[in-house]
């Protein structure tokens, strides 16, 4: 009961944070030229009126004082609707309302060059994101599972066997996690696997479950098999153009729902490598903290008490020390979650996975201009929401683990 008070209070504290983040994004958005803002909200101007967002339009031969251009009144209407000619505070309020009511603008100049992504200009950003969110979530959950499964036991071990081989190994691992950028690691893994297998088996190998012979190395990139692996060589109806699966959007779940077990396995298999790569960095930073907090806890009095009580050493470490150091782990995990999320665009880009990160990576890619600001800001908002909800979860866990927090 006390715990709920605590959690609710934390949740209330999160409101100003969300608003603050929104304000920052608002500042960025409103620093864009008006043209881009209109573009971001309404998408591309219709083919017939390409001049819609410009302040002046060519009108008569003379026009205003003979420039051949006159004021664009259509644009003024748009501005009014968006409130862009209001004073900033009002704009801020409108922006808040829009972002909380999920009016995040329209896809405008998302360049699908070279991508098999069925995004067409003019779609609302939220729908696009809602297609791709589940995939990212599945990836994230897998990665988190890996992190927890590796970091905590390894950290405890290296604290218990301080300066012994286990410890040294785990420390080197954590160091290299700090030192290798994720995309480098990912591509190294890919190349390593490809080179290794191709040197062993040549190129004739096919995916076991691809009757028409998909080259095996496609198993490691892309989130679905190629078209030719499917019955009568095209994607089933629930797999929209081989990218978006329905109804849930979680690839494994969907495949399982439609009873295609090999497909479910396949999609899971495609997630494992990226998840490992994403997890690696976080594990590195987590290991360090787990180890240190464990070292601290092991020096505390109550551990000595437990020993003096006659509790076997294993239990002392797992129960008495481990549970106490878990709080620190949770906190650090919450803190590093932002960086954890930041890794997704890159990794999904390396492995060509159709997640939000991939969309973001493409839409923000300054190599192919201009940027699709609607998508960029949309996905940023999305990530922020994810982050905040993660914080709440962390708080709940923390309160659950530590009675001192729970009971105030």
């Amino acid at each position, binding site marked *: 009961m006390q715990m709920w008070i605590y959690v609710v209070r934390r949740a209330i*504290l999160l409101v100003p944070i969300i608003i603050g983040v929104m304000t920052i994004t608002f500042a960025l958005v409103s620093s*864009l030229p008006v043209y881009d803002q209109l573009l971001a909200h309404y998408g591309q101007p219709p083919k017939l009126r390409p001049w819609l967002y410009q302040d002046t339009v060519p009108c008569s031969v003379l026009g205003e004082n003979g420039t051949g251009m006159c004021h664009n009144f259509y644009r003024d209407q748009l501005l009014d609707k968006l409130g862009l000619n209001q004073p900033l505070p009002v704009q801020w309020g409108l922006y808040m309302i829009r972002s909380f009511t999920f009016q995040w603008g329209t896809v405008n100049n998302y360049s699908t060059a070279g991508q098999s992504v069925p995004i067409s200009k003019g779609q609302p950003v939220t729908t696009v994101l809602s297609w791709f969110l589940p995939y990212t979530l599945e990836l994230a959950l897998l990665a988190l599972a890996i992190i927890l499964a590796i970091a905590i036991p390894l950290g405890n071990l290296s604290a218990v066997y301080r300066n012994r081989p286990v410890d040294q190994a785990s420390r080197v691992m954590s160091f290299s996690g700090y030192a290798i*950028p994720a995309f480098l690691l990912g591509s*190294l893994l890919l190349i390593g696997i490809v*080179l290794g297998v191709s040197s062993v088996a*040549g190129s004739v190998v096919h995916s076991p479950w691809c009757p028409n012979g998909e080259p095996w190395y496609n198993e490691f990139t892309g989130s679905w098999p190629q078209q030719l692996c499917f019955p009568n060589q095209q994607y089933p109806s629930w797999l929209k153009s081989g990218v978006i699966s329905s109804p849930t959007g979680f690839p494994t779940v969907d495949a399982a729902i439609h009873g295609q077990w090999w497909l479910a396995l396949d999609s899971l298999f495609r997630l494992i490598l990226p998840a490992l790569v994403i997890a690696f960095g976080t594990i590195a930073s987590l290991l360090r903290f787990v180890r240190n907090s464990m*070292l601290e806890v092991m020096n505390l009095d109550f551990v000595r008490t437990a020993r003096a009580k006659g509790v076997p050493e294993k239990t002392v470490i797992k129960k008495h020390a481990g549970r106490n150091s878990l709080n620190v782990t949770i906190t650090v995990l919450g803190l590093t979650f932002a960086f954890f999320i930041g890794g997704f665009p890159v990794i999904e880009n390396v492995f060509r996975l159709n997640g939000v990160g991939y969309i973001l990576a493409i839409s*923000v890619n300054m190599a192919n201009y201009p940027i699709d600001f609607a998508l960029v800001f949309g996905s940023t908002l999305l990530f922020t929401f994810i982050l905040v909800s993660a914080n709440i979860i962390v708080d709940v866990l923390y309160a659950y683990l530590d009675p001192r927090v729970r009971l105030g």
Partner: protein
Amino acid sequence: MTASGGANIPAAIATPTRRHRPSPRLDQWKRTWHFLRRNGLALFGLAVIFCLIGVAVYALTTPIPWDQLTECYGTNNQVITFHEIGLPVGLAWSVTIQNTTHDNVGTDVNFSLASGPAYAYTVTPPGGFNAKPASGQVAVAETPQTIDIKFSQGVGGVPVSPPAVSSSASSGPLSCTVCTYPTGTPSPGPNCYATPKGLPSLINPTISLSPLVAGPLPFGALTVTPENAYFYNLFNGLLRGSDYSLLISVSIVGVGAMVGLVVGAVSGYWGGVVDETLMRLVDIFLSIPQILFVIIVIAVVTEDYNTVLGLSPLATRVFLLIIGFMVVWWPFYARLVRGQVLVVREQKFVEAARASGASKGRIVLRHIIPNSMYPIFIQMSLDVGTVPLLTAFLVFLGFRIWPYVYFPEWGTISALATQNVLGYLGECATGTCSIPWWQLFFPGLALFLFAISVNFLSDGLRDALDPRLRR
């Protein structure tokens, strides 16, 4: 402890058994050094860092303009620029030469073509506009040239008149020093390298065994430009890159730590409303996805590569990089420092200082900050290693510190290399595979060495400075 003095104590005990005037700070350093010495990894890190600093200093002392690091292959490529006139901002148009279409970057479309024949080009205007000239011929001469394209509204339009060709010194290389030729064919001349497919990016590392000459391309080459027109000397790049990388990371971490220290100390010591507001601010910045934030800041501010504060475009983008990271960096330090300060503030010696009338400023400066410094140092040394990695993230996501021109910074190089190498993956799996391993290996190694040695060092320092772990 030697025995204490005291009113009724024999002098034999009272006088210390130490040398007359010890210098305690020296003792502390000795003690730290002793523990650092026992830690092989830390020593390794120290050595590597010293080497890198040396390299950076060397790179600074012998400056080479960064744009001359690029070398073109073939004999005489030139840049042809199509310049747009009278088109509203943000509309996309493109030019096609020999079935290759380039979209506009801002107001220009760039091509890099080998000289010789005259190329036919066609302009694709945005809907509702028509261009003059809509198509034409351009002959590549010895100098780069710019063709102005005028756009106008309405249908029909004016008959095509020969384009106004104006010559201008645009950025990019002007001289070709190196050339490549397909393996098996005779070498066209000096300074030419044999490559499997005539691709410059596949020039192998050439370590010549003569002790003095390191070969023209000791680390091999790397191709970055869109048309594969230019390739870059990895060795030079990494060499030049050292000082850029160090400067960027050190300045980011330094500035961030400064801000964090001040904010953390203030909010920790003053407490109350100040603390609350500052910490909420910190929370806000902590709940932005950092990398994305930096990307967006740069993307928004430098859309179309405009500049700020009258800096040069390059300086603008480096500056923005630093600022962007700084903005997302300080909150971590602020939180760290605050935690420390909250501990130190409760110590009795702070109260003693207040009891003898010390002002808040003095307490913060003389007591709080000195006693909460060490963890900050450790964290800083950790982060210095991490920054180039994050820069690499940005570049990988398409951020270019300098567009179309090779910018010597480790993160940039490794990211570009990765993208480049990933392109070869497909053909690689077919067995007939020649992956330019050096393009991943050397930049990756540079990043890895830097980060890991900094990590080793800071970890060693932490252990050496932490009295509890002193065993």
